[in-house]
């Protein structure tokens, strides 16, 4: 039955894209409320088009709705136009499926995918009518749960959540929901539920921990406040991906969303160990989904959605051992069905170019490389195992195959970076352009010339990476580096073929504070939210002034969290979380980075990171000396 909309026609006709708020999409799950005893509002705190594109949410939505008596619905951030109207008309936030108020739900689960959405979390709580701080919530309020990559340092937002689920959602939600039901039957009250929840592996209940600080402002102790609360929380991992639930009837939005296709998650984890990359550490060990399972999932999901495109998802798809088999199958099947295959960033080599030429129009698509750093020395520091030779070879093959556009991704502000490394960005871009003009005779140049787009982002050190101790550049340093890059590119022979883009510096600095912040940041978040900050991930709404005012009013110096280099003995805000990778390993990697030494990938040689304790994945597969 069609749900009665929470918003009146007048509002829906006034706001941009009302389809964001009506639910009722293909494969949306509607349950009979009489048969449901646990209601979950599952929130992605950004606009509908972004939230609907997130695979993790589709996986958990499907998983929850397979559970008897559980109904999981979706919530996204109302866009700024609706936000203003809801406040003015005092309309509470609602979930899409039933259109019921969030306050009617048992659990409000919020996935936290990036730091710049923190003010949107406050917006969700605020519009729902839920007090910001967990300690202020009454017995009847939904339990507010956080999950997702940012919970590997939950501290800046810790006090806004009743509990966090650290790690992959497939493993413990059944247990948590059973506990919730039991506590409700026994009328234990909210606090006792949380106390017992803290005993479930992977669950972190911030209110049972306290932080003390030393005179220099660093953490002096982080301890449970009660007997029986664990001192560390080990992340949860789904070790049998091929058997884990997977959405075969993913939601199909009416309106165009960012990721408007079937997404097939082929593996989790990455064996590469790039030192700046958090995902590469926290999703260890590498686990593949079986190719036959993936083929079946692809067929089912395409049939059930009618989508015209399928894409593969993983951190490094080229490393899946059955990738050629899977791609050949998909190419064959999708051609028959007129389905496009959108390829993830594959390592550029003869195989991937062959595949790409089969599924894309080479004249229209560009080739992407992510060298991340301009010089071999710096690529060794960050352990990015991509050499200039690899890139030039791959680009040459591609130019001969008809490609004329190349995208290059770099980072500025990496540890130990020098002017020479920055010049390397320009020189590498130039060499790629030169290779084109050398290889492709004038009469065969499809678009006349090669187009190289070099983009730089600013490096933000993240928890649970070997660079978690590193000093981050200041805004001024970042901008100097961007100008230096620009000048160096302009000095190149082929500069007319090279376009250069760089990212905003303000947001990178702020992201740095939020990524490595502690509980004291909560006050800043609340303050800046009250000044009107929301949608900080959207450059048109990001207002750095407001943030700087909030820091000043709270007496907090952002530089304490960004440019200050931390000693390896310092207690870091996220130290109580065990992501499976040991601190000793990260420290070893940090030291090797500073010496410019590389580390080989997991398939070639085990580095003893600690993830083998999970008892599976790549850690227990045969080593391959030749893996590169």
């Amino acid at each position, binding site marked *: 039955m069609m749900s009665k909309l929470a918003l009146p*026609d007048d509002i*829906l006709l006034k706001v941009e894209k*009302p389809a964001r708020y009506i639910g*009722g999409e*293909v494969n949306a799950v509607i349950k009979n409320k009489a048969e449901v005893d646990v209601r979950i509002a599952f929130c992605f705190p950004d606009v509908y088009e972004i939230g609907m594109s997130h695979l993790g949410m589709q996986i958990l939505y499907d998983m929850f709705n397979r559970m008897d008596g559980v109904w999981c619905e979706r919530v996204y951030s109302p866009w700024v136009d609706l936000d203003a109207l809801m406040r003015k008309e005092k309309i509470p936030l609602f979930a899409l499926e039933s259109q019921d108020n969030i306050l009617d739900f048992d659990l409000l689960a919020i996935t936290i995918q990036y730091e710049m959405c923190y003010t949107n979390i406050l917006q969700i709580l605020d519009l729902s009518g839920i007090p910001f701080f967990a300690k202020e919530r009454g017995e009847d309020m939904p339990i507010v749960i956080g999950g997702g990559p940012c919970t590997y340092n939950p501290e800046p937002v810790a006090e806004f959540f009743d509990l966090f689920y650290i790690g992959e959602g497939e493993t413990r939600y059944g247990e948590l929901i059973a506990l919730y039901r039991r506590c409700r039957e026994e009328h234990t009250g909210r606090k006792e539920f949380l106390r017992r929840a803290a005993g479930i592996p992977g669950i972190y209940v911030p209110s049972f921990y306290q932080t003390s600080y030393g005179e220099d402002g660093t953490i002096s102790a982080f301890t449970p406040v009660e007997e029986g609360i664990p001192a560390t929380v080990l992340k949860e991992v789904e070790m049998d991906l091929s058997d884990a639930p997977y959405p075969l009837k993913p939601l199909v939005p*009416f309106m165009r969303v960012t990721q408007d296709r079937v997404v097939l998650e082929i593996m989790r984890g990455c064996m590469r160990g790039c030192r700046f990359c958090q995902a590469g550490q926290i999703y260890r060990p590498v686990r593949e989904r079986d190719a036959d399972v993936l083929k079946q999932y692809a067929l089912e999901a395409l049939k059930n959605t009618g*989508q*015209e495109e399928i894409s593969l998802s993983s951190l490094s798809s080229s490393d899946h051992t059955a990738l050629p088999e899977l791609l050949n199958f998909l190419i064959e099947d999708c051609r028959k069905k*007129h389905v496009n295959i959108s390829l993830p960033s594959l390592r550029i080599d003869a195989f991937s170019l062959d595949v790409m030429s089969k599924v894309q129009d080479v004249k229209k698509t560009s080739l992407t490389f992510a060298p991340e750093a301009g010089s071999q020395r710096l690529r060794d520091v960050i352990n990015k195992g991509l050499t200039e030779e690899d890139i030039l070879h791959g680009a040459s093959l591609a130019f001969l195959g008809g490609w004329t556009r190349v995208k290059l991704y770099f980072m500025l502000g990496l540890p130990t970076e020098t002017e020479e490394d920055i010049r390397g960005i320009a020189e590498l871009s130039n060499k790629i352009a030169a290779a084109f003009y050398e290889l492709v005779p004038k009469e065969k140049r499809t678009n006349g010339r090669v187009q190289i787009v070099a983009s730089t982002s600013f490096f933000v050190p993240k928890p649970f990476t070997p660079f978690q101790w590193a000093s981050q550049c200041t805004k001024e340093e970042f901008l100097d580096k961007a100008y230096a890059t620009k000048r160096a590119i302009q000095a190149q022979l082929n500069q007319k073929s090279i376009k250069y883009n760089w990212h905003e510096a303000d947001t990178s600095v702020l992201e740095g504070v939020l990524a490595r912040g502690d509980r004291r940041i909560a006050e800043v978040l609340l303050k800046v939210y009250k000044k009107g900050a929301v949608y900080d991930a959207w450059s048109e709404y990001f207002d750095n002034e407001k943030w700087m005012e909030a820091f000043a009013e709270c007496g907090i110096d952002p530089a304490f969290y960004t440019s200050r280099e931390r000693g390896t003995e310092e207690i870091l805000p996220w130290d109580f979380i065990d992501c499976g990778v040991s601190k000793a390993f990260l420290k070893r990697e940090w030291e090797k980075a500073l010496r410019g030494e590389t580390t080989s990938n997991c398939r070639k040689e085990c580095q003893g990171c600690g993830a083998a304790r999970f008892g599976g994945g790549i850690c227990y597969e045969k080593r391959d000396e030749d893996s590169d």
Partner: protein
Amino acid sequence: MKNVMKIRIKFRKYGNLKFIGHLDVQRYFQKTVRRAGIDVAYTTGFSPHQIMSFAAPLGLGQESNGEYLDLEVNSFAGSAETADALNKCGVEGIEVLSVSVLPPGAKNAMASVAAASYTVRFREGREPDFDWRRHLEECGSLKDGIYELRLEKNALYMLLKTGSAGNLKPSAVMEAYLAAHGETLKENALLITREETYLDLGTGENRQLAPLDAVGKICGALSNQDGEIGS
């Protein structure tokens, strides 16, 4: 030449789905046609797309009992079967009412549209101050393209010129009517339902309006080997 068939699908759009726009409806049908396993014809090239054409876009916020789209298919499972397949994997808010096969050379849905009929109501509390039911006879001359206008069960029924040769919207008629009485329409004052979309079978000034699928035939299963297609 490949023998493709053109079918015309009539559907209704109602309830919450009045808030999805024209492009969303197109996307919805592209995907629903695939889910339903309809043997749709595609263009060639690197990004093939279904050969599909919609009649007249419907304004956001309006419901309709008479929307149309044309689809080229390689084979046809039958009118009832096709409608049923589309509805089975569809959503509440869009309902396929009928499917008919067009004769060869039939103009596409969009080019065929000549008129559309609507029922128009005022939302509660948003009626004009004068008795709008009393002066309806004036309306006929207010705008070009008003073919019919009358009171029907407390709502206004209008038949208006629609399509590429001229397009009159029901809200424009009401605005003109109210303006003639010195009033303006209140915000979102009207609830509009399109009742039917018409083509013109007549010649010149002799209009002979018929529902858009009047030129099609309700058929059983056909494959493109069958000589009878469109005969």
